[in-house]
């Protein structure tokens, strides 16, 4: 396994933090309606990267726990949008206590999101291909995390983080494409 320098992760995290803020700045300039709804889609990503940055720079596990919680909430929010169901909201506070549980819940949400999105893509013929790729990357990222927790009791893995980062890039690109589209009009 390649050993990755913490400094590299720091740089990636700073870049991703800035990148995940872009939709907040650009989208409201082009789309005035539904601000609250679409902001919710992106808001948990910069928070996640911020906590990862704190974790990498301080090595304090508490920050990693927060990062996992916001990761879970990010997937939960998309799950909620697909299903309009608040059932799992009651489970979320438990994830504050147990990281493994946050990962398992994230895995459930991301798997559900992947299945639901694929169904919509096939049956209703809508949804961006980039979001499908993004969800696959997220799914792989969580799977790697779970595998490493059970195999090696490692709570932070570069490979899982890398897939999450790739997933985030693909998740944000459609927002940028939308901005570009309305820029021309």
């Amino acid at each position: 396994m390649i050993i990755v320098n913490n400094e590299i992760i720091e740089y990636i995290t700073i870049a991703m933090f800035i990148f995940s803020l872009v939709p907040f700045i650009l989208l409201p300039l082009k789309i005035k309606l539904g601000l609250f709804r679409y902001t919710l889609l992106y808001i948990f990503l910069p928070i996640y990267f911020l906590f990862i940055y704190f974790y990498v720079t301080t090595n304090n596990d508490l920050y990693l726990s927060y990062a996992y919680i916001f990761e879970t909430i990010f997937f939960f929010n998309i799950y909620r949008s697909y299903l309009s169901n608040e059932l799992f909201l009651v489970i979320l506070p438990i994830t504050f206590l147990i990281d493994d549980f946050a990962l398992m819940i994230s895995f459930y949400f991301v798997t559900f999101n992947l299945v639901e999105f694929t169904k919509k893509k096939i049956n209703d013929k809508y949804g961006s291909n980039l979001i499908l790729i993004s969800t696959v990357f997220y799914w792989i990222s969580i799977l790697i995390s779970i595998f490493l927790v059970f195999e090696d009791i490692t709570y932070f893995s570069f490979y899982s983080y890398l897939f999450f980062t790739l997933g985030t890039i693909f998740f944000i690109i459609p927002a940028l494409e939308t901005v570009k589209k309305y820029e021309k009009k």
Partner: protein
Amino acid sequence: MRKNRSENRIIFEILQLINDEKCTGSIITRKVNIPYTKFKEIEENLLKNELIQAYYYDGHIYYNLTDKGKKLLNEYIKFKELMKLYGIEW
């Protein structure tokens, strides 16, 4: 099975319909699938907020979108397209 629509969604369906074709109240209630009382309630709000305007023609009341209504509908279409990319129905 059709999901329950939110009030906002019904309003935008009405605005979209008025924008697409010349319509009366009965056409709207039929195409948007809402009871007449609900339509009157929404119509009153839309007129009050100057999003639509009503005019008489050939014994019927027809509706038009105002500029403000067109702007709002345009914003809604943009928002809906963004949500569709994420596979979210709104």
